[in-house]
């Protein structure tokens, strides 16, 4: 059987899956909107935790966060399930598909056959939607792919039970109830408020704009601390988190700017429009940072330009601080 599910490509898998699922139930929201309502913009630098032989850099909150916040804010009810027994996980999916419910799943990408080989690392928080089964193959809508794909029973089982960090354990989810009326204004403002909290209000040196500044200063010492090769690899890791699959460019900054622009129109707040322009400008600076980092990675320049690269980040941190503080004021005024 095949559910009449419209696949639409997105920059990021999590936003894309939510937007696609919501559209199936008649809620038309863009990817950027989902991202903003789910407070997807984030930054953290955790030098003391090493993952895959590099410190942790993240431009997004933990996987599943955007999903939870977005659906909760919109008042959509989601049923989530994990299974100890793989066979039961697949049976449950089959039953869902028979009932005509498009079902989201968390999978690992390493064994995902249609995924391009250059992106296949052991990453276990990818989201896909199954929307049918034909000739024993599951029809899959993966938001980062241009069109729908198919997976065999064994292939799907293997990726649903990927091992390693953050195992999906056959996790699947589907929408059970959609409210008649959505308070989009409230959802947007709450999403913004949470983002302001994470970007500028939280204390401590590792989260939000302070994290960027911290990374900027820390990064200048990398060559002497870790040696050129390791420093270049760490720098490369930041750029990978920033630009690799699913950020829409510049570590979600453009996606967030798109959200601000849409919100400006929906809420009739002009100040948001100018914030969007500013956000785009910092996004462009993140791209400059990536260019500089790419050059250092290639080993084209001497170590002293780590100084300059770090300075770009410190500059961005100052600009984003201003943006999110202004955003905080706008939200406060709008909520009155």
């Amino acid at each position, binding site marked *: 059987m095949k559910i009449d599910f419209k696949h639409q*490509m*997105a*920059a990021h898998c999590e936003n894309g899956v939510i937007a696609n699922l919501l559209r199936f139930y008649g809620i038309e929201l863009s990817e*950027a909107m989902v991202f903003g309502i789910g407070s997807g913009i984030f930054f953290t630098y955790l030098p003391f935790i090493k993952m895959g*032989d590099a410190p942790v850099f993240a431009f997004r909150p933990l996987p599943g966060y955007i999903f939870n916040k977005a659906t909760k804010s919109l008042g959509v009810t989601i049923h989530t399930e994990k299974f100890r027994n793989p066979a039961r996980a697949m049976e449950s999916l089959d039953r869902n598909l028979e009932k005509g419910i498009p079902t989201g799943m968390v999978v690992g990408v*390493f*064994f995902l056959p249609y995924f*391009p*080989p*250059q*992106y296949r*690392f*052991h990453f276990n928080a990818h989201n896909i939607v199954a929307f049918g089964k034909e000739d024993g193959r599951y029809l899959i809508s993966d938001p*980062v792919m*241009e069109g729908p794909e198919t997976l065999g029973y064994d292939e799907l089982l293997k990726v649903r039970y990927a*091992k*390693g960090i953050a*195992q999906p354990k056959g996790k699947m989810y589907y929408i059970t109830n959609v409210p008649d009326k959505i308070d989009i204004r409230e959802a947007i403002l709450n999403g913004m408020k949470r983002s302001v909290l994470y970007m500028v209000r939280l204390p401590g040196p590792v989260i939000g704009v302070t994290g960027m500044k911290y990374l900027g200063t820390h990064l200048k010492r990398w060559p002497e601390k870790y040696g050129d090769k390791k420093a*270049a*690899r760490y*720098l*490369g*890791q930041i*750029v*990978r988190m920033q*630009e*690799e*699959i*699913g950020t*829409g*460019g*510049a570590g979600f900054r*453009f*996606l967030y*700017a*798109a959200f601000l*622009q*849409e919100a400006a129109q929906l809420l009739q707040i002009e100040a948001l429009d100018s914030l*969007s*322009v500013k956000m*785009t400008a910092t*996004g*462009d600076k993140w*791209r400059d940072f*990536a*260019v500089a*980092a*790419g*050059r250092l*990675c*290639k080993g084209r320049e001497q170590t002293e330009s780590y100084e300059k690269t770090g300075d770009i980040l410190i500059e961005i941190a100052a600009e984003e601080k201003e943006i999110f503080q202004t955003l905080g004021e706008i939200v406060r005024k709008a909520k009155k």
Partner: protein
Amino acid sequence: MKIDEVPQEDAEAFEKEFKVLQYAVDDNGRFTTVKSVGWNPKTVVMQNAWDFENEKAEIARQLVLRGKKSPLYYHARKNMMNSSLLAGYTGFCRISVLLHFNPKVFRRLSQNKLQKYAAVFGFESVEQLLKIDSGE
């Protein structure tokens, strides 16, 4: 980023071309999406990450050739797996996976266990598991 600034570089850097969605502003300042085939700094850092992994696999290959490690060790490294990840996929305990990295222990492994390892790496026969790639 404007629409015409969305990079379309290094399309043939990897074996499979892949487009990602990027957000950019059009002439009226409105955001829209553009598919991008690749960007040079991104290619560089991705290549860098793969070089790092390939280097680890190459070191493993040398160890196998010198008889210090079993071919299983090479295949694990090649698939970017460590002992615990491999233990997760096979259901063996981590200590035994570590033991199987030892060539002497590996040689005595039952066909059944070898089959399990071969299945994880997607090999059709056990033979493939016993061989290692000859370097370039």
